[in-house]
């Protein structure tokens, strides 16, 4: 059975560091329409925080741009799509590995956390065009996509 999108919100905000907190909190508020546990909501907040931070830091290199965040409720699953129109990732597979980073001041943990906490992660990226992360998390951890 293919569930329908029953509720959705699309957000677009400036690539400013204070909006990372906005993005993860707004996502948690929306996500609480499903019966996620407190721990699961914490996991969702972390994943959004990492994805939006990456869009600001790596995508837009801390200069002005717009980050998009789309949330869809599909049955008992929350779909989270974070995208930027920034630098893009040259080698997505490489970037997704633990400790792999192109910024010496960072640790390459973002994708590790997202993979650990989300049921599903798909990354689409094109150099010079931007990056989109498709994430899914179900209230029922048995469900895999």
């Amino acid at each position, binding site marked *: 059975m293919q569930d329908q999108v029953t509720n959705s919100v699309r957000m677009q905000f400036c690539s400013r*560091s*204070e909006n*990372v*907190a906005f993005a*993860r909190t707004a996502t948690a508020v929306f996500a609480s329409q499903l019966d996620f546990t407190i*721990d699961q909501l*914490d996991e969702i*907040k*972390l994943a959004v*925080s*990492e994805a939006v*931070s990456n869009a*600001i*830091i790596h995508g837009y290199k801390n200069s002005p741009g717009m980050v998009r965040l789309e949330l869809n409720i599909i049955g008992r699953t929350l779909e989270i799509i974070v995208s930027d129109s920034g630098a893009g990732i040259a080698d997505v597979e490489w970037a997704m590995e633990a400790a792999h980073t192109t910024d010496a*001041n*960072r*640790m390459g*943990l*973002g994708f*590790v*956390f997202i993979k*650990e906490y989300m049921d599903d992660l798909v990354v689409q990226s094109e150099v010079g065009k931007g990056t989109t992360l498709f994430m899914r998390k179900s209230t029922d951890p048995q469900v895999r996509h």
Partner: protein
Amino acid sequence: MEINAEQVGSSLVIRLNGELDMHTAPSFRQIADAGLKPPAVKHLVVVLSEVPFMDSSGIGALLGRYRIVREKRGKLVLVGMNTAVRRVLEMAGVLEIVEVADTERRALARL
């Protein structure tokens, strides 16, 4: 994020209140690094009991301070993590290299 710093003997105690992410990590970093400047200050105690959230930017800021105290042959002690913060620090392997204490008093007693 509210940040309170106090020197207690050879230790710098930093009490954080708020979420530690890419927006708030820079001020933590600045205040910690300033407090760790004096050669007499060897250890860093970070009180996390009022930190409801931390992501990889926060962890990066903690690990950067860990490197500084290690060079001074001092210790980094984390105090009072909630479940969410403890989980990400565990996943990042941070809890294997730093010290952990229940209370600020116990942390200082150990240094």
